[in-house]
């Protein structure tokens, strides 16, 4: 058996590899993503010039693809912080190779999501009015408060556990990298040298942060749902909405995490650390949340459908039978039932199956956000024919630009910062090899995957 030191060196080399070597394919990817972002910016410049008339939105369906994408991005931001915090709190050891990626997804998704709100504004030039004239009565102000708090919190939560790894980069790369980078690592490592005092402080800081971040994350998606639930619209009139949105957020967050993990694992050869175990466990989590989502959908739709209050009849018909039926059925069968089936069948209980489930869920959850926003507004309020909404090329282009920005920021991040929490993985490994500390009881692990 190889010694601990050899193992450790290999781990560090794996973490450092992306920063040391950059392939042509990487630059090709960056170029493609930049091109898509540029196209999105071009589309947005047209919208800035001509106004929201270039979108498919009109008075009756006055929110569309932008708001749906905003909700979607804020949803996947729960990948990170919430998942990694919950797994940290529950001391699930298998999480360690995954947490860093998850935390970065959070920060990037929040930045992308917040920009979609500004894109949706009729007067983006007046966005500062939100600060000058903001009123606490408005759900939008709750959102501004919650999202900025969450963004600050998750940047801190990304940074603090990264300090030892930044110090590693500082020590290993000084003299072998550009001066700017060396300065960056030196500054961000804030003098970390790994002595016992520092480590105790770090543990305390992480302990506080991970507890703190959970209520913040829950509050964020709750108030996002309240933008809808606080209006007098039948499809949105639900006390369940907050919890429903939070569950959906974690659900889509896990899915995005799985997809990003799979891509990074392949491109940066992380096979030794990000193993099938991580995928299958996240797959179980995904299936569990799919079950919660099914439950939430049943209670939501049954309560509306049983009573058939004014508007509910129209709403359920557009969901299940008419205009939105293909999208909604895909969401129900592909996005909610699909992942559970994939995790139940032993043959698909592997990386391929989990990634397939994650892709299904990601697409389905974007569709769900879209359907919630558009169908909610489409139920006629007065005696008029129901309006229709079809996003224009400008909206699709900006959506593509937003998704490309998300991918681009993550891609760039991998070239600057350690994508694996080296010290946490190492600790996990040591804890596995060494006999358990008598004072700390064995943490119940997830059951071993069958066939995995």
């Amino acid at each position, binding site marked *: 058996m190889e010694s*601990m*030191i050899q193992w450790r060196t290999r781990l560090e080399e794996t973490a450092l590899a992306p920063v040391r070597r950059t392939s042509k394919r990487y630059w090709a990817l960056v170029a493609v993503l930049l091109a898509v972002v540029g196209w999105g910016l071009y589309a947005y410049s047209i919208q800035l010039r*001509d*106004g*929201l*008339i270039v979108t498919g939105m*009109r*008075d009756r369906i*006055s*929110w569309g693809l932008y708001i749906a994408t905003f909700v979607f991005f804020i949803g996947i931001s729960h990948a990170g912080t919430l998942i990694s915090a919950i797994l940290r709190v529950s*001391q699930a050891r298998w999480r360690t190779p995954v947490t860093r990626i998850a935390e970065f997804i959070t920060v990037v998704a929040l930045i992308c999501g917040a920009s979609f709100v500004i894109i949706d*504004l*009729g007067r983006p030039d*007046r966005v500062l*009015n*939100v*600060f*000058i*004239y*903001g009123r606490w009565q*408005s759900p*939008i*102000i709750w959102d*501004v*408060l919650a999202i*900025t*708090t969450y963004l600050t919190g998750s940047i801190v939560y990304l940074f*603090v556990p990264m*300090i030892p790894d930044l*110090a590693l980069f500082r*020590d290993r790369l000084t003299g072998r990298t550009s001066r700017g980078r060396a300065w960056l690592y030196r500054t961000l490592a*804030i*003098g970390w*040298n*790994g*002595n*016992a*005092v*520092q480590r105790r*402080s770090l543990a*305390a*800081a*992480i302990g506080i942060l*991970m507890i703190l971040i959970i209520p*913040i994350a829950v509050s964020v998606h709750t108030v996002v749902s309240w933008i809808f639930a*606080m*209006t*007098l*619209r039948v499809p949105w009139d639900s006390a369940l909405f907050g919890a429903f949105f939070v569950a959906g957020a974690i659900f889509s967050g896990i899915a995005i995490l799985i997809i990003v993990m799979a891509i990074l694992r392949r491109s940066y050869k992380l096979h030794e650390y990000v193993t099938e175990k991580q995928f299958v466990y996240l797959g179980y989590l995904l299936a569990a949340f799919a079950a919660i989502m099914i439950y939430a959908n049943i209670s939501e739709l049954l309560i509306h459908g049983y009573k058939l209050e004014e508007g509910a009849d129209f709403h359920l018909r557009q969901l299940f039978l008419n205009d939105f039926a293909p999208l909604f059925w895909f969401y129900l069968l592909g996005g909610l039932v699909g992942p559970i089936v994939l995790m139940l069948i032993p043959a698909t209980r592997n990386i391929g199956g989990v990634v397939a489930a994650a892709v299904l869920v990601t697409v389905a959850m974007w569709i769900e956000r879209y359907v919630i926003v558009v169908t909610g507004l489409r139920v006629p*309020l*007065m*005696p008029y024919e129901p*309006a229709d909404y079809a996003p224009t090329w400008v909206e699709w282009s900006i959506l593509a630009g937003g998704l490309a920005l998300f991918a681009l920021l993550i891609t760039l991040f991998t070239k600057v910062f350690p994508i694996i929490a080296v*010290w*946490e993985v190492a*600790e996990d490994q*040591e804890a596995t090899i060494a006999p358990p*500390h008598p*004072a*700390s009881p064995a943490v119940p692990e997830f059951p071993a995957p069958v066939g995995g």
Partner: protein
Amino acid sequence: MDRLNGDPPDGRARDVLPDGALTVEPSTGRRGTAIGRRRVLHMLGLGALAVSPIPVVPELMRIAQSGRAAEPARGTRPPALTQDGRIRQWTMIIDLRSCDGCQGVGGPPRCTAACIQGHLAPEPMEWIQVFEEELPGGGSRFVPTPCMQCQNPPCNNVCPVGATFSTPEGTVLIDQDRCIGCRICMAACPYDRRFFNWGEPPVPPQARLADYSAEHQVPARKGTVMKCDFCPDMARAGTLPYCVQACPNRAIYYGDLEEDIATNGRAVVPASRFLAENNAFRWKDELGTEPRVYYLPGHGEAVGRDAFSPGRAATEWPWTEIVEGAETWSR
């Protein structure tokens, strides 16, 4: 081995550093700085509470500019008063018995047309819109629908910047100089009474002369929300709103609940008695929005309309003829 979370603070195990664990920097000897770092880390963790509510900044900004948030929208004037100094409470009473959707005069509803002309409302805005509602037992009735001027206005509550606000006179106005165009008020309004300037609204020459006020919303501004404003500037000056003046059947009454009086331009009625004796109702009263617009049930029978003769002429906007290259859109 040291685990970060959940260990009891026994300290012993944590202080022993096994070989190769974590980064070891040659400068460990500097004890003093280490304590400094420790402080920094402590503050990072505990200070998360202090760092996270960075959004408190907006509140501080607001306090710094406290005058601005409270100042009235541009052009709004002090409320109209009764002779003994009470604030007038504007109301509208629409007698559906006298509304035939202008079938009798042939052509689009006059109230809508006059409103469009008077307020220079961009196409396709119908601040007062004549809906045709099916009657439960068959047939239909026409319902002129202005902004309901709710006393519990769902739109006001949700506005993030206070661009839409209630006046002391009980009307709901929009300050298009402050509106950021987020459109949450449109999602919140249960009467479909809010309209957005999706494109550059047509500004006819006469509108350029107008001094903007939230009380008449001229000239219109791109990327902002508009709606019926109840013409408070005209009412204060003793003139009836455009829609009331234009109704050929005198179906619309405008008045003051404080003084308990209303008029359609011909008859003057005691408002509360008029409402009670004619079984007035409010649209979607069950929502609790407390509208200031009352309806007297009917289907145009007072002006000879047959409930089974459906249809009204489509509303028209003159702007494409008046303003060259005027931008229009559909609802």
